[in-house]
């Protein structure tokens, strides 16, 4: 590195370009570059490599990053929930017990637990723990997921009956929702966005719908799904909008599209 006449290494050229050299080394590299065409050319080649890489990297990934608005609102909501939990429960002592882990692991585990990935349901947010009758899915566990399918394909399908969910996936859904093993019979694992509207069988689109729900039950949801599909196929509603509305809050969607505050007569339990 101290050899005045030696050419600079790729590493040195890169360190210089990245501003990672000491002032003394910068002066040495600059003076060499001023004198040496070979090293100047090599420096340019390295810069072209950086530019080529960055172009490919950004083009490949930038277009795939979804808008920040929703995630930002979700983060705000989760911070609020975190605050509520800190006030209402013994989160502080749980946090203490994680201190023996390295901080990223502890923070990750702790938050994952709060988000309900590992914790029994009773440990999660108090309002979730109390909701034994699940009528609306948890938006973090079940945000909804779709397959790449267009309106024509959705409307072409004659059989709109949902296919069954495997036992393994059912178990995973129950685990995620912290439902004790004795209770699963009280729930049906249902698609949030029905496959008849392009919903996928990804776990993010599955939730345990409570059989105990008397008003906003599975039949009422089916009715909404049929209605939205009709609207989509008649060209009166965009497929993406239908999927989004149902994923946001299917009960609100029902009220909106049937112009009612209660399920229609036909959907009420006999």
């Amino acid at each position, binding site marked *: 590195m101290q050899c005045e006449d030696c050419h600079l290494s790729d590493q040195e050229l890169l360190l210089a370009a990245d501003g990672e050299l000491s002032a003394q080394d910068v002066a040495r590299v600059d003076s060499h570059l001023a004198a040496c065409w070979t090293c100047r050319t090599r420096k340019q080649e390295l810069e072209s490599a950086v530019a080529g890489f*960055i172009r490919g990297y950004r083009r490949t990934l930038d277009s795939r990053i979804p808008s920040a608005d929703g995630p930002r609102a979700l983060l705000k909501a989760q911070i609020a929930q975190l605050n509520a939990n800190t006030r209402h429960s013994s989160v502080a002592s749980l946090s203490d017990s994680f201190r023996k882990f390295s*901080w990223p692991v502890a923070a990750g585990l702790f938050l994952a637990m709060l988000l309900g990935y590992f914790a029994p349901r009773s440990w999660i947010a108090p309002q979730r723990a109390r909701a034994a009758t699940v009528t609306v899915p948890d938006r973090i566990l079940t945000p909804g997921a779709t397959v790449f399918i267009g309106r024509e394909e959705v409307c072409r399908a004659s059989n709109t009956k949902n296919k069954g969910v495997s036992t393994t996936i059912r178990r995973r859904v129950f685990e995620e929702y912290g439902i004790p093993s004795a209770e699963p019979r009280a729930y049906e694992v249902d698609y949030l966005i029905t496959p008849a509207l392009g919903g996928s069988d990804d776990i993010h689109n599955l939730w345990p719908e409570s059989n105990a729900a008397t008003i906003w039950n599975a039949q009422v949801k089916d009715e909404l799904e049929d209605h939205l599909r009709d609207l989509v196929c008649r060209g009166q509603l965009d497929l993406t909008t239908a999927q989004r509305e149902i*994923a946001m809050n299917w009960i609100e969607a029902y009220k909106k599209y049937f112009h009612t505050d209660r399920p229609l007569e036909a959907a009420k339990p006999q």
Partner: protein
Amino acid sequence: MSENAMIKASSASKAALAFEAEASSRSPQTSLVEQEVLALFDRLREPLFRYVLSFSLTMADSEEIIQETFLALFQHLQQGKSRLNLKGWLFRVAHNLALRKRRDDRRDPQHFAVTDLPCEELVIDPAPNPEDQLAASRKQEALAAVVDALPEQDRRCLFLRAEGLRYREIADVLEISISTVSVSLGRSLARIGRAVER
């Protein structure tokens, strides 16, 4: 995929409404921390998202990791811990969460075939004419192949550097020495350079 994102976005807006009342009762200190976290989210979500995507995770998983990362930041700041180099801190947490997620996915034989596309797929840049387009796409393919063939650590160094991290910060995230970062970047760029020139 974009539909998924939209769905998440909409449900998130709903979630925000539900917690609006709660927000008004928060302490001024929490509110300041929250503002700080949100400001960092606005500035660093995209770089972090790109980095997490480079682990071949799905969009949904990546989004979840970003949320967890910023929630961890909120906790970190609320507990009055160090504010030194929060950008490096965020990348380190995201890196660890992404690694863990990828490890869990690989370990789980029942891992679901997700509907999102993994990140490695190449996006071909629209060029003015078909010949240019073909040439550009071939070059990009060659470049992507070179990057894919790099050892994991070299790729991590490259991606973190691409997101503007300094050598010291990269070393901290990957728990390696600065000189290893420097050697790794030099080696990778030499390979990429050959692919670009071809």
